[in-house]
């Protein structure tokens, strides 16, 4: 038997923070690739601390629903899961290359495959592009369009910028969009000046965050100039300084993210059959079908 644990932050204040975790877990459940699928949280229940003992499977794949390698993936999650022999060096990563490490948790008799965060997996590049497709409602989006990948910046985690730049570079190499830029909230180049960095009239802004909350639903829309006051919402697209800005919140809410979770487990040796294809097919038919909503959901509350 094999189990999947999706490890996410969660919130004591904002019930929406865990929505993407539940949604991706359900998508994976529906593929039947794992005998057990469990959500686990730092700020909600089940806590990281107790999740493994709720499983019957001997093989457990833990995938952190985080954007970058750093404090949570390297210290908090392994410590709380009681992965005693854990050492960040086991990942042999410089910030974007973590794949997996196999360990034992000291309170249970199980093998734990501790995977790198979803945010740095190559498949995340596709999710960012998919996000651009779903926000514009155009499966062929790219030509004549600029793409801004937005991250928090370095004050919280030195690897956070690396993840953003990594995907930006990968998308740029594909040559699909006229321009691709990495922008940040707390460091240069700043998302406030988004229009300064693009010649293209249409710019898709994709924040590389896991869940919608304060940053993606309040800060960024106001910083970018989509709206004066986030509580009044904004249009998609919105006119800003002669550009059309397409914005739809955290990339982690994109359905295809479940695919990245699965890819992580497959890299770590999970037998997932054709679950990845299943999820991709479902996402593709959804995008082609209704052309995406093209409208941001602006009602998420602030995270803590």
């Amino acid at each position: 038997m094999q189990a999947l644990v999706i490890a996410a932050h969660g919130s004591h204040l904002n019930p929406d923070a865990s929505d993407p975790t539940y949604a991706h877990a359900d998508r994976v459940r529906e593929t039947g690739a794992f005998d057990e699928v469990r959500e686990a949280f730092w700020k909600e229940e089940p806590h990281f601390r107790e999740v493994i003992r709720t499983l019957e499977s001997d093989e457990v794949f833990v995938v952190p629903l985080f954007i970058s390698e750093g404090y949570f993936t390297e210290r908090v999650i392994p410590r709380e899961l009681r992965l005693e022999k854990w050492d960040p060096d086991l990942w042999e990563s410089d910030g974007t290359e973590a794949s997996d490490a196999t360990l034992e948790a000291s309170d249970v008799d199980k093998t734990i495959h501790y995977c790198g965060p979803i945010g740095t997996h190559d498949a995340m590049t596709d999710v960012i592009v998919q996000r651009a497709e779903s926000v514009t409602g155009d499966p062929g989006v790219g030509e004549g369009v600029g793409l801004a990948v937005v991250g928090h910046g370095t004050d919280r985690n030195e690897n956070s910028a690396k993840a953003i730049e990594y995907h930006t570079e990968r998308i740029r190499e594909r040559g699909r969009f006229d321009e691709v830029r990495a922008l940040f909230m707390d460091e240069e180049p700043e998302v406030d000046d988004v229009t300064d960095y693009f010649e293209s009239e249409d710019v898709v802004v994709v924040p590389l965050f896991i869940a919608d909350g304060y940053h993606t639903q309040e800060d960024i829309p106001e910083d970018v100039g989509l709206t004066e006051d986030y509580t009044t919402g904004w249009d998609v697209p919105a006119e800003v300084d002669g550009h059309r800005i397409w914005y739809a919140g955290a990339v982690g809410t994109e359905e295809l993210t479940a695919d990245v979770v699965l890819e992580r487990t497959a890299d770590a040796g999970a037998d997932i059959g054709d679950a990845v294809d299943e999820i991709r097919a479902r996402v593709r038919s959804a995008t082609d079908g209704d052309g995406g909503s093209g409208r941001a959901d602006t009602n998420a509350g602030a995270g803590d």
Partner: protein
Amino acid sequence: MSLTTTAVDALHEAAEADGDLTFDGLRLAVDDDGYRLETPASGWAGLDEAELRDALEAIPAYVTNWRYWRRSIGGEGTARQAFLRWCERAPIDGEATDRSGDGDPDERGSADREKTGATLAVPDRYEALRGGIDREWGQLSITARFVDSDGADRLPGERVYDLRHVDDADTDLADLDAYDDPRTAREIATYDEDGRYRPLKTAPTLVSGWAFTDLSGAELVEAIEFFYPATIANWHRERRGELDVDHWRGTAERQTGIYDVVDELPREAVEWMAEACCADSQCLRRREWQYDEDDDLDADGGDGRFPCREPCSLVVAAARKWAILESEAERTYELELTMSELNQLEALIDAVADGRIDEIREADVNDGANRYRARYLRAKRFDDEGSLRAREVDD
């Protein structure tokens, strides 16, 4: 209840494989003179296969009971199986069957009693399952019963489970919102009656008005996992004497980042914290963690059915706040209050702490926490900046 031949076949096959099969009072052994079959009330020896089948047909409850547990549920030694057996008062992991039949021994707060516990032998259990066996798990009421009809996909002796709020135990099903997907439990558990987010799943604020019916054993466990995560696993560990408790000191010392400060919380503040957060009125878990391995807290841990093995994330987050607040020095203030006003301050704090604010009637000016009384006190005693006119007294 008719007994299908499949159950007899499966049992026969298992006995052939095992040589000697014992389960819930049923014993089936294969020896040199044929089959030996025993229940607490009957016994046969030297049976040939045809005789064995006839004998098994005579004890259908034992046969379908074996089939249900060994084939439908499975998972020997798992928390899931133990929990489902607890639901129907079946003995767990070889615990003794208590046939004294002393009524309903197992209601809230009876962890000790549960251990000694009134379990039911197969015939009594089958009798009870026809009407449904009720159990309480926090604010959840679980009914284990037989399926209403035996159909193609409903094997004889197959159990199903109904799940609802304890407050709805006597409510007609038609008056409740009916669900069958265990994942719905996540949504039900998210908000309290007033629409406020419930970050602590075991807070006694679960809304009522819903029902899951006809759940399989696996679905019941899944739903409970969503309502009260990890409670079954820790309950099971506790029953087996394997609960690993992490006390306050260890938990606090392990924290890093912004929670690094929680280990500075003074011992007496930990006491107040446990009293404030871990009481039955705030959390249905029974606090088993102490200040340290050999240093128990005086605060009562509560009577909950399922143990709390370590301070939860909510308590750790609150502890951070208190650690910071407790680092402040105490000072002496002087302020003018009448005796009644002093009493009123106490009434206000009590009302907020007990969550009583909404119950205070608009015109009940006898209650110190009445809104008009509070507004009057503020109008009288606060200065223009909105602060109490208190003066710090120099030493």
